[in-house]
């Protein structure tokens, strides 16, 4: 029983870390209608920016997370403006392929700049916390708290601000949004910035939980993609639900199988969920 509770706790923590970049992936898909596979590399860029702010400039962790979000967001906008936007003329498939190419380039730019060595944030050592029979690391708790705060902030942005409502309106009905005076260009750029910044935060949280290397974002890419697909590709709440489902499923896998099988279980969950709900847990039917 203790093992099960421990796996559940680990799953909730890793689900919360997946949920942040999954929100970014789903937001970009909902508004710009293409799957951006550069999100893993944008997570890496954000994580290295945060690590640099923390270790080279002594920035506290929260400030470092903010710096990582800003650098990842701006990198996402640059990528969209320089390359992906032009590829959009060839349709969503061309943009998706372009984003894969961009992911490889970004990952290797990071490798060129920082090398292949593992890096760690400058954090004070602290003991694990026991919650009943469950052991949780202080970084895991902090990561969970930051992830939940980010999710709440995203919800508030989308629900309470006119820019957030405009994003949801464009995702829902782009032609009607134009008729209501929404600028699709502005909303697209804001969405890319927010989506990429969320990936940067996600990469930083993963780096804080363990360590950094140029594949830190690439390793979570498939799990993030699985979370977004399971939740419903264009559904923001679905991305969160999918992330927790995938996170918990992966942790339970480790109870019975070697960790190498985690991803296989993620994709088995995709098959299972999409068999019964083709649009995902909270997604709308394909338009």
């Amino acid at each position, binding site marked *: 029983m203790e093992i099960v509770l421990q796996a559940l706790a680990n799953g909730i923590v890793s689900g919360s870390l997946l949920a942040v970049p999954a929100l970014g992936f789903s937001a970009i898909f909902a508004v710009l209608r293409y799957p951006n596979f550069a999100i893993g590399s944008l997570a890496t860029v954000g994580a290295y920016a945060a690590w640099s702010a923390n270790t080279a400039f002594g920035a506290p962790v929260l400030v470092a997370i903010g710096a990582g979000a800003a650098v990842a967001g701006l990198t996402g906008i640059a990528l969209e403006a320089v390359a992906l936007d032009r590829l959009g003329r060839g349709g969503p498939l061309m943009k998706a392929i372009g984003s894969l190419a961009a992911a490889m380039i970004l990952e290797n730019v990071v490798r060129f700049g920082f090398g292949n060595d593992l890096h760690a944030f400058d954090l004070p050592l602290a003991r694990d916390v026991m919650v009943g029979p469950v052991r949780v690391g202080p970084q895991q708790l902090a990561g969970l708290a930051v992830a939940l705060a980010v999710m709440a902030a995203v919800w508030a942005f989308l629900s309470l601000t*006119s820019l957030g*409502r*405009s994003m*949801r*309106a464009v*995702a*829902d*009905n782009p*032609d*009607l*949004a*134009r*008729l*209501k*005076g*929404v*600028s699709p260009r502005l909303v697209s750029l804001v969405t890319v910035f927010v989506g990429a910044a969320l990936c940067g935060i996600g990469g930083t949280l993963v780096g804080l939980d363990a360590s950094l290397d140029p594949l830190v974002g690439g390793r979570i890419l498939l799990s993030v993609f699985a979370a977004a697909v399971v939740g419903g590709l264009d559904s923001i709440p679905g991305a969160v639900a999918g992330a927790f489902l995938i996170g918990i499923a992966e942790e339970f896998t480790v109870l019975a199988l070697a960790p190498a099988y985690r991803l296989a279980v993620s994709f088995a969950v995709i098959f299972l969920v999409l068999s019964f709900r083709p649009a995902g847990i909270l997604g*709308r039917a394909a338009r």
Partner: protein
Amino acid sequence: MLLDATGLVGGYASAEHIVKGVTLRADAGELVTVIGPNGAGKSTALKLVSGLLRPAEGQVRIAGEDLAGRSPQALARAGLGFVPQERNVFASLSVAENLEMGCLFEPRDAKARAAEAFRRFPILAEKRRALAGSLSGGQRQILAVAMALMGRPKALLLDEPTAGLSPAAAHELFAYIRGIAQDGLAILMVEQNALEALDRSDRAYVLVDGRNHLDGTASAVAGDPDIRRLFLGGRQSKPAHSKGEP
């Protein structure tokens, strides 16, 4: 003339022009109906006026300002509201959020305008937290019109506002539309329910094959024997409702 679309030619990209020369006008306080057979280019003409489609030729003037070829955002800001026939609400947003989207570019007194919409359309007040996608067809059309009015437009384009509604709901919506026109809006309405639309309207246009076929006062158009035979099923238009009293 508040809304003056002259000599419009255009259609969808890579296709033959559907609209081959259409002129549509509506003055402040005037309800003008556009009728015609299927494929006459009525809805396409409204899309050309609204900016959703770029006209190949022609002018679109709102209060004298030529806005042809400008974006839908520019036309909305200039005072043009458009209620498309389908997908005319944001289904995943609440009723209240839909209304807020209606005055996005002038949000200062959004709450007062929403309160006004709730007074005018009590059903929307009851459903203010409901998702627009959960509303009935009639309620959606009312929301779509209310959302267009949130931007306080000078002119309003309505594309088949009563499509899919029950006769009672259509009757109620026509009454609302007539009331809105009396508030001083110029309304151009494409409608399949020609008999009641003409009964409620001041003037009418008949389009055939992408061109103006006939225009005049609504009663004159409704009384034209050819029009009655072609579009009104041979029925006599009866002035059941006073245009001044919705």
